[in-house]
């Protein structure tokens, strides 16, 4: 009976373990920190009095194992020909030992300022990809009043489609990306057509709609897991070597990711500010009945917002898959709350607020790793969300009447 009624979430008592022994000149070293990272999972451990460490991981996949040289005694470093961090993969057994050979020497330290710049660059990258998802969420909220909890599954969808068409069906990556984006647009079109439009016709209230979106999110997420399994898989060509731009090290994928985000965001801004459909969207967001009486086809505008929102979410998912790196069934859900935090921070229903909020959240999450352990980095962004609501509930760009 004991476990029969558990919620069915995966047990965290992992089956797979990395382990190792840290010794220097046959003496065990205590308190050396080892970090294992991969597929959105990260854990660290310190060596015990015998110099031993052990870290459980959720999947039998490849992980990046890092020995933190700052925790070694003075004058000891990881030997120069040893890779640190290194990628480790399981063999046939469920345990894998990773040992670092240590040598004498002084380590190359990265100055705090350089670390800060690096984190800042990563934060901007992360913030921009959050912004793509956040603007869609914000536009949907603005035009329909729905807090769409299924947005995370629209994010995951883009990455999963890219994985399917590039890794599984063997298309070149750029064609697979185009197909994935088109399918994302199609997902938005059909979600609105099959679920949201009929519900608007029935006059279902926004709170009910929100609960429907929660049910939809759960159903879609586990449908993904049903078909794709629980493992994290890598996209072809992910995590290439870093380029050094002064003190900042980024890969070319990071640079392309930032460039694409900026171009797409400028495009959305142009669409909203300069085109007829953008004006119509803003009119509907402002006051739907007034927009309808002045001849705007509200249903059509909402349909376009869903299609656009899903397309942006799909692109955001693709970039998130390269940023993590890896594709998994719940990758969108991992950042859903950050997207909500970004939207709330900027002001619910305002597109440009979502952009600013996303950049703040992205930079905050990355910078907080300078002081906080990295498995708490999302905590800081969520705490900021609550603090902002305490002092400026309408968000940075929001208007007071929206919070009533």
């Amino acid at each position, binding site marked *: 009976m004991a476990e*029969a*009624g558990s919620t069915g979430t995966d047990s965290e008592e992992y089956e797979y373990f990395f382990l190792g022994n840290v010794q220097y000149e046959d003496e065990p070293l205590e308190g050396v920190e080892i970090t294992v990272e991969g597929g959105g999972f990260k854990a660290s*451990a310190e060596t015990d009095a015998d110099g031993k460490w052990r870290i459980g991981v959720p999947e039998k996949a490849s992980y990046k194992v890092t020995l933190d040289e700052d925790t070694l005694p003075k004058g000891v470093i990881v030997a120069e020909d040893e890779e640190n961090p290194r990628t480790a993969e399981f063999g046939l057994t469920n345990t894998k030992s990773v040992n670092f050979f240590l040598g004498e020497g002084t380590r190359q330290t990265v100055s705090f300022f350089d670390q800060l710049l690096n984190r800042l660059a990563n934060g901007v990258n992360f913030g921009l990809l959050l912004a793509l998802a956040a603007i869609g969420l914000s536009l949907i909220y603005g035009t329909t009043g729905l807090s769409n909890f299924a947005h995370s599954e629209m994010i995951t969808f883009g990455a999963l489609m890219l994985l399917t068409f590039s890794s599984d069906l063997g298309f070149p990556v750029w064609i697979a990306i185009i197909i994935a984006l088109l399918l994302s647009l199609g997902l938005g079109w059909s979600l609105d057509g099959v679920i949201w439009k009929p519900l608007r016709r029935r006059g279902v209230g926004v709170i009910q709609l929100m609960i429907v979106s929660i049910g939809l999110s*759960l159903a879609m*997420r586990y449908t993904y897991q049903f078909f794709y399994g629980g493992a994290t898989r890598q996209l072809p060509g992910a995590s290439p070597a870093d380029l050094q731009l002064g003190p900042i090290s980024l890969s070319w994928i990071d640079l392309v990711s930032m460039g694409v985000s900026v171009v797409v965001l400028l495009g959305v801004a142009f669409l909203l500010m300069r085109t007829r459909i953008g004006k119509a969207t803003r009119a509907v967001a402002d006051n739907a009945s007034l927009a309808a009486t002045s001849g705007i086809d509200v249903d059509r505008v909402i349909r376009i917002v869903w299609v656009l929102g899903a397309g942006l979410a799909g692109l955001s998912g693709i970039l998130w898959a390269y940023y993590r790196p890896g594709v998994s069934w719940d990758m969108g859900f991992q950042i859903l709350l950050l997207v909500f935090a970004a939207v709330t921070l900027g002001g619910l229903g305002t597109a440009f607020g979502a952009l600013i909020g996303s950049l703040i959240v992205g930079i905050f999450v990355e910078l907080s790793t300078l002081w906080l352990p990295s*498995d*708490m980095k999302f*905590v800081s962004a969520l705490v900021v969300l609550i603090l902002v609501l305490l002092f400026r509930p309408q968000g940075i760009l929001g208007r007071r009447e929206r919070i*009533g």
Partner: protein
Amino acid sequence: MIDWGSIFSNAAVELISPTTAAYALAALGLAVHFGYTGLLNFGQAGFMAIGAYGYAISVLTFGFPVWGAVLVGIGASIVFALILGIPTLRLRADYLAIVTIAAAEIVRLLFTTNTFVAVTGSANGLSEYKGGFRALNPLSFEGKAGFGPWMFSANDWWNIIVGWSVVILAVLFTWLLMRSPWGRVIKGIREDEDAVRALGKNVYSYKMQSLIIGGVFGTLAGMIFIMPRAVIPSAYATSLTFFIWAILLLGGAATILGPVLGSIVFWVLLSFFSGFIARAVEAGWFPISEVQAGQLRFILVGVAIMLLVIFRPQGLLGNKKEMSFVK
């Protein structure tokens, strides 16, 4: 061939299992929040986690007796409710939804992080806190006792008796509360906040009291939940909250017995369904793996939430008029 007997008896076990009691109690707390006050709390898993960890940490780290550990859990959940409520209860309903879901995740991440591993056990969680609770057990027999499918050990019976006693007390308490003047004010807030404010009531304070009461129910549910198992942080993910919402909507959000009935129906059906699918997969009826069979139930719960909200928002026991505030 499918062993129908074991599928039915496993489902029958869920009828009275302490897990069902825990979910019923958590859903009752949510009924106080949502069904009676109109508060969208999506952080019930956070309240349950605070109950579970509050109890386990008090016993393991500080060596508190059972009653002390329970009081610590309740105190922590009141503090948590105040932290949630102060910034959000003045704002529109969906702000509370976003903040509660974020706060529940913060709580789970704080219990998962390696930073506090000495106290929280990190991702592996905690166990070995049950001694004091079991020492209070008046039942003492070897092996299993009971009848039909309900054959349990003395410790299991103790979990069941305590769990359901707490549920019954909470149901009586809620029933008395909702027919008191306090309950009428709460329902008035649900229907029209401004009208209640115009009558000179302090809406903010009433909402806060409701948030605290429902949260304490969630905390007690968290304690019942960990008695038959260990405390593991991943159990308090957002999907736990969504399961409790499904139970609440199934039974009827603005009813006293709805959450209890909802929990029983939910777990019996889910156990029956999982048992059937698992056996059918073993027998080769469906071309899917056993892991996939386990995921089908989440898909089912998600679809059930959607259909219930659209087609029967009042649930099994509810009255449609009581749900007119959901708009």
